[in-house]
């Protein structure tokens, strides 16, 4: 056992300092898609997207729904003058409309009372937040990225987030997958037994909108058709830092739009 302790200490510190220090993805990391030029788009550009994330309005202006985007890059390759990949981790938003890129009307993101209360509780409890996860039909990769938050590179416990096995002790519910038929009841039951204040984070594009799943197989396209979602993290799958960012948004430790300085 002593040898293990030595081995553990020999490596020195590898843990990220996020959010006190920014964390930059490697060049070429496909974190999200941005619209370079959304005006006067050629008809048919919306058909490049296999999940219908791209829409054109009557004035042929592009709207991109990052909540539906699986980052496959078909639009970036098909219309490189219109779309590009952005190499960034912080993709989470508090409102579904925040995931829309383009000229869209965005309602003011008012702090919902529940989230505000959770933020206050986070301060009161000296940042002791218990997290519970439920899989409602993910592809399995989101689970890996959430698990990674507790590995030595990310060590989210240093920010006061702990994993709990009982929803009755949980403050935050992480939901992956677009909610398949058999998972609807277990999801609702899990959420209902969680004490207030509580927050729900939809992790991954599948959870945000249903992703690539065949329509008829899901109860609804995305978790927010079943339960109110506090933070959306698009990505297929989102990287650990993206999920960490979402958790900090959910507890009010980071403000929307604010990224690590």
């Amino acid at each position, binding site marked *: *056992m002593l*040898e*293990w*302790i030595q*081995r*553990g200490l020999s490596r020195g510190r*590898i843990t990220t300092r996020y959010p006190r220090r920014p964390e930059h*993805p*490697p*060049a*070429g*990391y*496909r974190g999200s898609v941005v619209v370079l030029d959304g005006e006067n788009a050629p008809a048919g550009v919306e058909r490049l997207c*296999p999940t219908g994330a791209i829409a054109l309005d009557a004035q042929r202006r592009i709207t991109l729904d990052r909540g539906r985007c*699986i*980052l*496959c*890059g*078909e639009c970036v390759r098909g219309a490189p003058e219109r779309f590009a*990949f952005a190499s960034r981790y912080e993709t989470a938003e508090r409102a579904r409309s925040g995931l829309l890129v383009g000229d869209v009307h965005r309602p003011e993101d008012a702090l919902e009372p529940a989230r505000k209360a959770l933020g206050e509780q986070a301060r009161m409890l000296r940042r002791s937040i218990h997290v519970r*996860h*439920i*899989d*409602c*039909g*993910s*592809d*399995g*990769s*989101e*689970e*890996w*990225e*959430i*698990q*990674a938050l507790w*590995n*030595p*590179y990310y060590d989210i416990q240093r920010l006061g987030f702990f*994993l709990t*096995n009982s*929803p009755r002790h949980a403050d935050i519910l*992480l939901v992956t*997958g*677009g909610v*398949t*038929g*058999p*998972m609807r009841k*277990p999801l609702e039951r*899990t959420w209902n037994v969680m004490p207030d204040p509580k927050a729900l984070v939809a992790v991954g594009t599948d959870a945000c909108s249903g*992703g*690539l*799943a*065949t329509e*008829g*197989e*899901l109860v609804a396209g995305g978790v927010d058709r079943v339960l109110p979602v506090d933070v959306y993290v698009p990505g*297929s*799958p989102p990287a650990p830092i993206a999920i960490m960012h979402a958790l900090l948004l959910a507890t009010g430790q980071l403000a929307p739009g604010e990224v690590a300085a």
Partner: protein
Amino acid sequence: MSATRQTSHAPGFPPEQLGAVREPAPAGEVRLALDAAAFAPGARAMQEAGARFATMLLADSPEPSLVAAFALRGELVLLRAPAGGASAEFGSIGAWWPAARWAERELAELHGVRFGGPEHPGRLTAPDADLLDRHVSGLDVFSIPYGPVRSGIFEAIQFYIESGGEDVPRVETRPFFKRRGLEARFAGLAPDVAVHVAERVAGIASCAYASAFSQAVERALGVQAPQRAERWRAVYCELERMACHLDVIAKEAETTALYVGQARFQILKEQVMRLRNRLTGNRFGRGAILPGGVRGEGTMDLDELLEQVDRIERQLRRDRRMFLGTASMTDRLIGAGRLPRALVEDYGAVGPLARGSGLSTDARHERPYGNYKRLGVQVVSERDGDSMARVNVRFGELSESLRILRQTIDHLRRRDGELRAPLPALGEGAAFAWVEAPQGELLIRVELRAGRLHNVHVASPSLRNWALFDHAFPKDVLTDFAFIEHSFGLTPAGADR
């Protein structure tokens, strides 16, 4: 590629009385057409010839048919019987071959294929978390529905456990909580778009699924991916295998509360994930592989990649020695979840699970494809059949993956070449392809019509291996559950599709 190849078979196969007609097929496939009435006897003949049942599906070409696939001596033998007209009835194979049970139930429930087998209570493909359909009896025996909401961060699946507190007389595995209908999602897509669906069938094995799908399209259309593309695919697939195996080992360490050990293997896994991120722009290697080849060169200097591989190997060697030298760790694995070889064969299990019980099945070796044709694979096999054996297989395969990586990167470094072969615009055809995914042999069958996907079947190793989980507690107690589950190392997403 699509030329018929005559191969020698065991004498007397297929038996003449079956009346099987040999049809043209790409290399590695043997296609036999027979009557619906001869379907089950044909499967029986396959079993007697020593074949492993792989999967069963409904095909649309050359005519609506029921197709069963068997692995036999380095070839994939396909039995096909017309399923036209709702009247066709096939004899049940699952009644006497456990490997076919779930495949049969899936086809019966989702497509109304009639096998005339025994009726099953409850639906396999539409599970109900609240359904407790058995009344248990016995001294202090109670039942625990474990899942689909798991303790910890795990995918949704339910285990219906009956226990007297210690021993576990019965476990029933209930998959399909996360069925997303992805096989149907392929239909109508062009191959290079459909590969995004393949990558998301089982997210932790994206590269294996993308490779198998791409190879199936290539085989169906008679296209050969360039050598350099096959090498890149091998690099991505071996890195993926390493990540999956390291994940299993880290989880075993966590279950024993060997937290430094857990952290060490998590660190190694994260290093592999970051390597993949630098190579492909995605931590799971998504978007790198597509039908015809690969999308581009890996975006990392090959010398540096080689250095990183060496570095991981140095660390792994020491962590492995310490893991295997920690008695509190190995004591929990030795003897836990012992699976006899005969049982594993009956269920047609594949991957590290089968190799832990003395089998040597590995798609890279049985039916070499792509880069493995040139490189070969040392199949790692253990005899004991317990969780320790399955972990040992994974340690052995980590070393083998590192060898393949080093050799392949070296080849990539020395020679340049094409990365992508063009696909015919309106190609037609149907073919199987196989890949050894980290969880075991993965088979994907595609049918293309006018250049678009028409009918896709995914036979995931996870679904085939999970049927065996019901039998994994011969002498084990409830507290062994997590060790045994992790040692299986499967993914519900792949099983449920």
